[in-house]
């Protein structure tokens, strides 16, 4: 199958510091691929390079045959690659529904002037956004808190809202930055099921950066392991668990209990 996303020799140097070096891997359509590695391995930098927040020093990111590295984030999002954030990032003083509606920006057919004047197209757009927002809210099980102000929500709901914001752009690839961080076992299992549904029911390709090894092993089709900015392994969860370089990278760290 032709890959939907190709990372080719991506490198980022900040002065003398190399955040990541010559990382390459392919992502197949509708695959769930996790990027793992100890703290400071360069995972988040890799995500920023894919989503357009950081331009690689060398190397490139190809999405459906088009080079997207170097494009600004809004253009990358327009093409269908969207990133959710490590910190739960939402629009604090809007309600849940407003958050999701405003994030439909990319779906607008009317111009900003059209929205200002309230043209027919603008009204049709707004109606469509409202419908789609309700659809996403239902999909993520946020019906009960639809009209809550986002700043009042507990952590678990915030993470789901962050995902709803990402879905509102109707992406083809969604990048989830530590979706399980700070969650207890039950919450993690629910989130794992949710990520699966993103792929199974909405046909998304999912890339995630994560520390929670049991969850990663459970959810991923394939895993890429990074250490000190370099890719040290790539393969299925079983292959990664058996890889001596991965075990070495994690040995002695808090994540040593790999695959438990």
């Amino acid at each position, binding site marked *: 199958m032709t890959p939907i996303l190709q990372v080719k020799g991506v490198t980022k140097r900040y002065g003398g510091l190399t955040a990541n070096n010559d990382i390459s891997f392919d992502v197949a359509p509708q695959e769930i691929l996790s990027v793992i590695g100890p703290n400071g391995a360069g995972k988040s930098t890799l995500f920023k390079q894919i989503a357009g927040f950081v331009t690689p020093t060398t190397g490139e990111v190809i999405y459906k045959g088009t080079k997207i590295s170097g494009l600004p984030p809004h253009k990358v999002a327009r093409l269908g690659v969207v990133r959710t954030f490590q910190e739960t990032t939402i629009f604090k003083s809007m309600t849940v529904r407003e958050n999701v509606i405003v994030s439909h*920006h990319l779906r607008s057919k009317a111009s900003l002037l059209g929205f*200002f004047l*309230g043209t027919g197209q603008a009204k049709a757009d707004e109606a469509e956004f409202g419908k789609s927002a309700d659809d996403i809210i239902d999909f993520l099980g946020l019906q009960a808190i639809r009209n809550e102000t986002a700043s009042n929500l507990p952590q678990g709901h915030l993470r789901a809202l962050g995902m709803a914001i990402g879905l*509102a752009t109707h992406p083809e690839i969604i990048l989830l930055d530590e979706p399980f961080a700070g969650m207890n076992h039950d919450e993690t299992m629910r989130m794992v099921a949710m990520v699966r549904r993103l792929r199974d029911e909405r046909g998304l390709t999912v890339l995630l950066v994560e520390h929670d090894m049991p969850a990663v092993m459970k959810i991923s089709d394939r895993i890429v392991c990074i250490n000190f900015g370099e890719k040290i392994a790539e393969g299925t969860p079983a292959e990664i668990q058996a890889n001596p370089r991965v075990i070495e990278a994690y040995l002695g760290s808090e994540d040593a209990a790999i695959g438990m």
Partner: protein
Amino acid sequence: MSMSRILGIGTFLLAVFVLVPVIIGLSGRWDFYYTLTSVALLSVAAAGVWLTFYIGRINIGQGAYALMGGYVSAVLMTQYGVSFWLTLPLAGIFCALVSVGIGLPILRLRGVYFAMVTLVLTEVARLTALALPITNGAKGITSIPLPGELSIFGLTIIPDFATLENPKLAFYLMAALLMVLTYLVLWRIVNSRLGHLCRSLQQNEELSASIGVNTAMLRVLAYAISSFFGGLAGAIFVAISQSIYPSSFVVQDSVNFMLYCFLGGLGYVFGPMLGTLLLYFGWDLLSIAREYQLLIYSGALIALMLVLPNGVLSLLDKKEGRK
């Protein structure tokens, strides 16, 4: 639109266009026309400042655009014989274009850094007006004609102000009408997608970019609209005072525009209008306190910010219990 809203707008328009002139006519306080005209034109400039607040930028540079707009209008009228009514939009458009050039680099700054640069802008505008030959330096531009007749297809819409019995009333009505139009536009912006996107920018620029908003473009757009209002206010000022000097709008004015927004309420479209009215009118009324004027004024200002940090209009929220 709800019944109470229509009623509210109706009452407001009635007060501005009928009640005020009637009360002034009865009380004989003709000087209030000048005060209220000033309030109206200052609140047009403050509306612009408010919009930059709405994208999360503290703008202390509106005086620069008011001055610029004033000079554009004055130069066009005195040197090129352009009708005042045409210079009004031209002044706004000129300021909007200039603000795109200035905004592109400086809008990348956030917080106090952006505020500091805008603070300098007013001073730069003043010094530029002093230095350029076309602005006539410190002597300024004086004896600017009153607004002439505005007619379309031979139909007189606005008579020549020089022929009017009561130009004060005419100026008041003109400024008030422009104020109403400005806030209508502002209200529409805030309640359309444009405003929603501005809000997303104010709350989280990174997230806004990642949902596909061209944040750089949107910031410049909001700033250009803001500066358009500034230029418009400057042009009205020129028509009223019939003169303009480099010191017509100074840093103090820029700071005042910001204060009007703060006091009225940054979360409310009509905040800057109310803020301008209270502060400007309040200052005027306090003149009876003579040497204590500034003391009482600043004391009241501090007290208001302590008691109502979200502006005077936040009183409405408490009463109705909504946000």
